[in-house]
């Protein structure tokens, strides 16, 4: 591994470490749930009676947060905006992970930038809401604020790199492709990128 700076070594280790924790965690959790019995039927009303009904219900919950919509329109609006724009921004970011860049990812480029901006605003809104509504303030944990702050910081540094202090995207892609192909190279020593990258570690 000669030729890699100490900084790069730390970041490379963290990237792989984070990926390992993430994947292992998911597998362990999923296996744990799958291996645990569910002896009693616990309907979540309104419960569908058919398989297509169940699929529609699940899709509605996963894609449109229907229960949250019933529960609190403001939280739904902020939460939905956040998740939708995050999805679009992530899609755009695939350009750093794929060669050649697929058309759909290329197309997500320009709207992905604005999605990133909206996402950051949505995070600020969700943070403010959590802090100002007396009910949510009383139930919020350090981890709840921390996750939001972290994502907000990622959004912010991303936007700065896009609109103000441009980073060397070729070098960034080189570094990420190095990670993805298991041939790590030196990380571009751009402080904004160094802050922007660590989202996976948490």
């Amino acid at each position, binding site marked *: 591994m000669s030729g890699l700076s100490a900084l790069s070594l730390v970041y490379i280790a963290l990237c792989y470490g984070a990926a390992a924790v993430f994947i292992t965690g998911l597998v362990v*959790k999923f296996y744990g749930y799958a291996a645990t019995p569910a002896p009693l039927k616990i309907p979540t009303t309104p419960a569908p009676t058919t398989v297509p009904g169940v699929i529609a219900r699940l899709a509605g919950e996963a894609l449109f947060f229907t229960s949250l919509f019933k529960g609190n329109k403001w*939280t739904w609006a902020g939460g939905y905006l956040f998740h939708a724009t995050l999805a679009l921004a992530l899609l755009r970011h695939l350009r750093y992970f794929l060669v050649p860049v697929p058309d759909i990812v290329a197309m997500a480029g320009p709207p992905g930038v604005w999605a990133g901006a909206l996402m950051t605003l949505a995070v600020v809104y969700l943070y403010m809401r959590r802090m100002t509504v007396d009910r949510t303030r009383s139930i919020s944990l350090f981890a709840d604020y921390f996750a939001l702050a972290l994502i907000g910081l990622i959004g912010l540094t991303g936007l700065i790199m896009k609109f103000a202090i441009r980073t060397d995207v070729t070098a960034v892609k080189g570094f990420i492709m190095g990670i993805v192909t298991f041939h790590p190279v030196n990380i571009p020593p751009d402080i904004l990128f160094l802050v922007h990258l660590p989202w996976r570690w948490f």
Partner: protein
Amino acid sequence: MAKKIETDELTGEIVTPNIEPGATAHYKPNLAAQEHNESLGFPGSKIEGWEEKAIGRMGELLSKYRSLKVYMDTCVRCGSCADKCHYFLGTGDPNNMPVARQELMRKVYRRYFTPGGKLLPGLSGAEDMTGKMLDEWFSYFHQCSQCRRCSVYCPFGIDTAEVSMAARDIMNSVGVGQKYCNEVLGKVLDVGNNLGMEKPALANTLEFLEEDVEEESGVAVRYPLDEVGAEVLLIAPSADFFSSPHIEGFTGYGKVFHEAGVSWTVSSYASEFANFGMFVGNFETMRKVAQRIVDAARELKVKRIIVGECGHAWRVGYSFWNTLTGPFDFLDPKHRTPTHICEFTLDLIKRGVIRLDKSANDDLNVTFHDSCNVARGSRMGDKPGGQFDIPRELIRSVCNNFVEMDQDTIREFTYCCGGGGGLLTDELMELRVKGAMPRAQALHEVMERNGVNTMAMICAICKAQFTKVLPSYGIGMDVVASVHQLVSNAIILGGNRGV
């Protein structure tokens, strides 16, 4: 009660209160006595080293119920449920927000079952299982009526009822039981019903009822007990045998069977539909209570089981019986087991088997209170939403005047009466009164606007709770009615055409 319980003024509006930490920390049910705990196989009183034992039991439950595991992991504290609980709305105590109630267990879960909580308890919101924590558990897990309204609004479908059931089971496992539930369970397992009513008393009651109906109507309607070979075993909540307006509903069941020409019987061995085993979250206790009904059905050689108006028991019957005590292959497969009395009666009406004079209910202006466990824990009939539509259709077919309450307070959004989940006990009266606030507001609105004077329902706990607490809001207990009481009023006896 010596002290008058302070209640919100009725305006028809359900207002979310500001939080008031600790407002109801002092509400606690009475501790169960040694004999009651031991009769259910729990330690008589708080055991030595209970902390470790409690964590052990939690681990067992986490490995037995996927639901609990998922519920402990997935909450993101979005707050969607926070203003949905009737006890929070009525008391303002932040621990009565469903999310906070769950957090009482989640804090402990994180401490003992997650890496983050083991390593960095401070940052993860993890806490030790201590006497103080147990105290909070005993208080706040007995301020949950397991009505599941919060689960309707949760983006992950987290069900606080399951959490409070698990918490109560853990507490029972270390000898910290709740008196009301454990005492009642002792009676049902010992005598056959929650009231501890022995067979002679039950026989007397039924005889008296026969005389009463005959005197009033001139028709000899039978209320049979322990008749081997009857077609139907009727399992009713035991309050139906004596309380009002429960017994008016029970009277109605008998008239329906009479007009249908269907032979039926009550069992003295299993004279209770209620199953508090669910409230204390103990599978084995719940199974034992349910098993009595199966045994009685075999003993009496009936073809089908029809159940009376009881909310949580309908959930146990509809959703759990098959797992607990099934299969019911010794019964006639033509019929659903269990069949709800509302399905049975509505079917007869639709087929023109029983004749009705709707005008007998013309002095009533009726609304319907969906009982939580029927609404959110079960279904009825063969269509989605049958648990909402069947009782309504039945009421409309026997009454001319029917009005719905505010749509945010009915069907799957219904508010608990405030006395469910094993909280129907006097020492929790303040909680019960305050928890009835949302329903009282919605009822008040239709009373003012539409002249509603009757709130019909199909749950024994709801009936007992409302007759007791509505007067605190200035609403008379006579508004509370059984659905089969309305049927009973309208049915034309002697019009028997048979099935």
